[in-house]
């Protein structure tokens, strides 16, 4: 019986949250078709592995984790290899490159290294608790806190840059 409850619960969660699920996938793969594919793959995966959902109250972080993993698989396949974070950060610090007149999520978020982007999206856009974010990304809470702090820092640097450019 427990099995059936789990299944309908997972199905219900997916149906009710499909928009969020899609956006989360989109925030990784950045195009409609791939995002739809990720959603579909993630559902298959979830329905097949729902036994691994040990704590039914954690269905949200459990399913988001599957979406994140599936998205990363897709990116890996697409060979969009992220440069080393240090290099990437360096580029941010120099910050002298492109100037965008608007704070554009496509640009700002896309240029964040994936590990920072994940925490921002999950914590601030999907409103997950720090603990849930940690659960989704399979890291401990302190790591997530640090990463969140760093992410905001990077983002702030970015934004200040934009703002000061705009003010001139």
């Amino acid at each position, binding site marked *: 019986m427990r099995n059936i409850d789990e*299944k309908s619960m997972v199905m219900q969660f997916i149906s009710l949250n499909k928009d969020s699920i899609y956006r989360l996938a989109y925030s990784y793969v950045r195009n409609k078709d791939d995002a*739809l594919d990720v959603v*579909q*793959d993630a*559902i*298959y995966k979830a329905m097949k592995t729902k036994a691994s959902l040990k704590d039914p109250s954690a269905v949200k972080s459990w399913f988001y984790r599957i979406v994140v993993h599936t998205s990363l698989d897709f990116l890996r396949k697409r060979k969009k290899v992220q440069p080393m974070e240090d290099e990437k950060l360096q580029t941010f610090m120099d910050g002298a490159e492109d100037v965008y007149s608007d*704070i554009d999520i496509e640009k700002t978020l896309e240029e964040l290294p994936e590990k920072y982007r994940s925490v921002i999206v999950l914590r601030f856009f999907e409103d997950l608790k720090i603990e849930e974010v940690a659960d989704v990304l399979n890291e401990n809470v302190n790591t997530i806190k640090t990463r969140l702090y760093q992410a905001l820092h990077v983002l702030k640097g970015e934004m200040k840059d934009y703002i000061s450019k705009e003010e001139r």
Partner: protein
Amino acid sequence: MDDQLEKLKQQYKQIPIPDELDFIVNQALKKSYRRKMRSRWISAASAAVLLFLIGINVSTSVANAFSAIPGVGPLIKVLTIREYIVNDDSHNANIKVPGITNLKDKALELGLNEKYLEEAKALYDQFQEESSKAALGVDAGYTVMTDTDDIFAIARYVVETTGSSSENMKYDTIDKKNQILLTLPLLFKDDQYIEVISNNIKEQMKERVKADPDKTYWIENEEGDSSIEVFQSIRANQNFYINADNQLVISFDKYEVAPGYMGVQEFVIPAKVLSDILISHNYVN
């Protein structure tokens, strides 16, 4: 800063939701659900079905292609005995039903052929039911995988296309000399084979990923992250066939052990891995 974040969040929330999302989510949920039900389908097969009965397909090319291999074993022929075809703007079905002839064991022949018909009918019924709601494509047919003196193996494939596609394979491997339909448990002394084969497959998966980083399997990765259910073991009656080199080939459907883009996955299990646990080395060597 909070303002900026809020702005970003607004933009995030405005990522447009495509119209197809509903359909794809429902379809995926339904299919995942149906996957479990598949074995129970057969009873529902007799509904009124529009048949495009081509009769025995006497297309000589097909018949010849599959029966031309001379050998000690009896000449088994496979013909397309029925074809279900639907073609309109948004619905496509092309379901070819194989029929095996010339088996000495007529009961086995009949059993297999009935099974193929039922599979096709069930597929067609499902297509009819779902096509009233949405665009859909189904392509099903068969391939002779192996035809040697000893072994005859036939695969049936089903490719369903909605937003993206799913792919299913089924196999029958027949011992020609003894006219037996082989099953995986039949080949081995005891159920140790499940573990032996599974372990070998896990190794092969790792090697494949190492050789080509574009490949992904649902196996534990280097970080030891096994939070997602990973491939643990084959099923006792996992899809398999025996190829022309007398090797055991284990097959997984799309999505079964890897993300969808990897498609159907096959693993040839080296004979030396199996030699201790095989009952006889007649089939696999």
